[in-house]
């Protein structure tokens, strides 16, 4: 069962929260409502920027993963992260010597963005994806040792 959370910064300027199926609006939404939290209805310019940067970084990692032929399971995780972030035309070069270092760098970038975001929903997605990238780093380091 996949209950994937997606934050879309739409052209209408609203932060739409959810996934394909209504049921998959997610435990998090339910939890957020249960504790009284509400999505921010209109994204700030800074949040739009954070989301675009996150997507550009995600795309860069996918490209690098393809080029360096990392395991399919890792590539699938990276693709999934990228797909669930709003598309952007921006491109970013992740300046790191190794693929693991690149993942670590982006993980830290996402963590920084998480504590900066105004929207709590965006913060959760960024924080969670940061944790996922740290998992990839540990998984690849474990495979190499």
């Amino acid at each position, binding site marked *: 069962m996949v209950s994937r959370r997606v934050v879309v910064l739409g052209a209408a300027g609203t932060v739409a929260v959810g996934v394909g199926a209504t049921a998959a609006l997610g435990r998090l939404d339910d939890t957020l409502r249960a504790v009284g939290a509400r999505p921010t209805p209109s994204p700030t310019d800074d949040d739009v920027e954070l989301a675009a940067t996150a997507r550009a970084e995600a795309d860069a990692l996918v490209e690098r993963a393809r080029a360096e032929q990392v395991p399919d399971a890792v590539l699938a*995780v990276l693709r999934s992260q990228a797909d669930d972030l709003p598309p952007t035309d921006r491109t970013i070069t992740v300046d790191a010597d190794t693929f693991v270092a690149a993942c670590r760098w982006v993980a830290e970038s996402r963590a920084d963005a998480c504590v900066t975001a105004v929207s709590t929903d965006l913060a959760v997605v960024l924080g969670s994806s940061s*944790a996922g990238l740290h998992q990839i780093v540990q*998984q690849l380091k474990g495979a190499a040792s």
Partner: protein
Amino acid sequence: MTDRTTALNAWLALEREAVWLYPLIGARVAAAADRARSSLATHQQSRDRLLAELAADDTTRARAAYEVPPLTDLKQARRVAQDIERRIQAACASALGASDRRDRMLPLIGLRTAALAELTWGGTAQPFPGLD
């Protein structure tokens, strides 16, 4: 009680469960004893950090015992450990969503810690730990 306090208490309840669970894993499955000891130390730290954060707002109490599925071999130990780490990830994600910007670091670190802990028990990387 604030939304964040409620979310942190839910997380603390799971940390208390983990502190109860890992010695049991170590005692019942010798092959997992070292890893269980390490996990116990990590969760004791998380519990204590949450206790300090919540102070008088701590509304949880450790139970005398928790329900545990069969736990006699390494495979079962891994499954049980991954389960608690995943539940903690979800609790951290909820706490993150209930936190203001200045308060996000604690649940963010907790989420990362639990996500990495899941890997040490045989889990695999997920796109969005705590959310799926």
